[in-house]
């Protein structure tokens, strides 16, 4: 059974249709690369999955749980949306780290706040917090940031910031981790260190959706590629299929522009 099913998702801002009839599925452990020119709707799609935008039509299913159904108002309640969001993690293009917190605090904050909602939090406060801190430190170490735990975001490079952001998202153990052009704000050198971390996650079978303009990376890391054009899924398939034997003229055009 697929972990994620997106069915006929539709989104428009006013009279502009941004997403039309988007349907795809994902299996656990799969890495999905989403490519396409700017304005093709990739980012909006990620934002819909994370409930930062409300689609106008369609359904989103996680396993057999209906997360979103445009035709069912019960799935749109604010309180439940908060919980549903936690199925997904999102790493932003410009990191959006909290500037007043250290790297470690950035990673711990949300986890800590969620733990406070547990019934046994008060009784086991010390233990739970120690556990969260240990886990957060382990994640930052995994990101190669063991020396930067108590640095504030402005003291970190863009690549380091993005790795903190990845650790922050991972700490909530989302079912699917989404990346919205994670390296677009970085120079080539910093891009490399972030891509390396994402690649390591892929090797550990982390389920991920990656919106990116790094074509060779999209191709290497993905098990499935979606090419979007004007709010629609234009072509989908394995990296070989989409990059080597694209069926659509539009896909060929788009890829050709990268090979110049």
């Amino acid at each position, binding site marked *: 059974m697929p972990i994620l099913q997106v069915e006929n998702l539709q989104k428009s801002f006013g009279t502009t249709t941004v997403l039309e009839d988007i349907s795809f599925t994902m299996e656990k452990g799969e890495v999905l690369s989403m490519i396409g020119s700017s304005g093709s709707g990739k980012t909006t799609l990620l934002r819909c999955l994370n409930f930062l935008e409300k689609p106008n039509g369609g359904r989103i299913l996680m396993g057999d749980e209906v997360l979103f159904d445009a035709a069912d108002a019960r799935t749109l309640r604010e309180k439940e949306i908060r919980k549903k969001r936690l199925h997904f993690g999102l790493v*932003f293009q410009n990191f959006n780290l909290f500037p007043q917190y250290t790297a470690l605090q950035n990673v711990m904050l949300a986890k800590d706040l969620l733990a406070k909602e547990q019934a046994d939090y008060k009784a086991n406060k010390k233990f739970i917090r120690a556990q969260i801190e240990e886990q957060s430190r382990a994640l930052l170490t995994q990101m190669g940031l063991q020396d930067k735990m108590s640095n504030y975001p402005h003291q970190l490079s863009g690549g380091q910031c993005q790795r903190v952001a990845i650790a*922050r*998202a991972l700490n909530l153990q989302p079912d699917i981790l989404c990346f919205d052009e994670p390296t677009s704000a970085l120079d080539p050198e910093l891009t490399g260190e972030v891509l390396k971390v994402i690649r390591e996650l892929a090797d550990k079978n982390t389920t991920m959706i990656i919106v990116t303009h790094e074509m060779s990376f999209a191709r290497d890391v993905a098990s499935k590629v979606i090419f979007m054009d004007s709010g629609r899924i234009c072509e989908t398939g394995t990296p070989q299929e989409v990059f080597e034997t694209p069926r659509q003229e539009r896909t060929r055009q788009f890829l050709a522009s990268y090979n110049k």
Partner: protein
Amino acid sequence: MPLFNQIVEQMPIVFRSLNEGFGQTLRLFFVTLAGALPLGLVISFGSMSRFKPLKWLTRMFVGIIRGTPLMIQLLIFFYFPGLVLKNNIWGSGESGRFLAASIAFIINYACYFSEIYRGGIQGIPVGQEEAGLVLGMTPGQIFFRVKLMQMIKRIVPPISNEIITLVKDTSLARIISLQEIIWAGQAFMKGSQGISGAIWPLFFTGVYYLVWNGVLSWLLGKLEKKLDYFR
């Protein structure tokens, strides 16, 4: 030097009076801050409300308060109940004047603060809120744990300006005869406690303001520095 000797002789009387007046000045200053800093936040939420009538009503109110002199507001606040409603809710005496002045000052300064808060909140990149949402935080958590500190950092310099202005604005309460330091200094010009025609006490009132503003500037500067740990 008879004049000098006279001044030295008058000093104990004058400074006792000025100290008392300055006490009232400080009380008005602190009460205004204690009331206006939180009330300003409430007003700023009103002016950012998604409920349009509330938003426009709040902004109109802020516009009127900011667009008219505090002195008029003080006069109207103090005299309107007694003269028009025939019911002087403030009562007579210094405590009534202080209450009326406090409320007028709190409302006036809350309106100025609300605009500063609004700028501070709206200047925070939308990505901060989105990052919080995606991490499963509630709107309350996002405000208190993510935005508030960033807002405070942004508003400290403009709020500091207002605080310095407030120190000097407290003297406007003189218009409803609140016995603050200018009132106390002026009394020796007209004649009080056997001293009359003396203008030198008024110069010293200026020194009180200067010293107090110096202390505040130093403290606020320290606060600003303290918030320099993040950007």
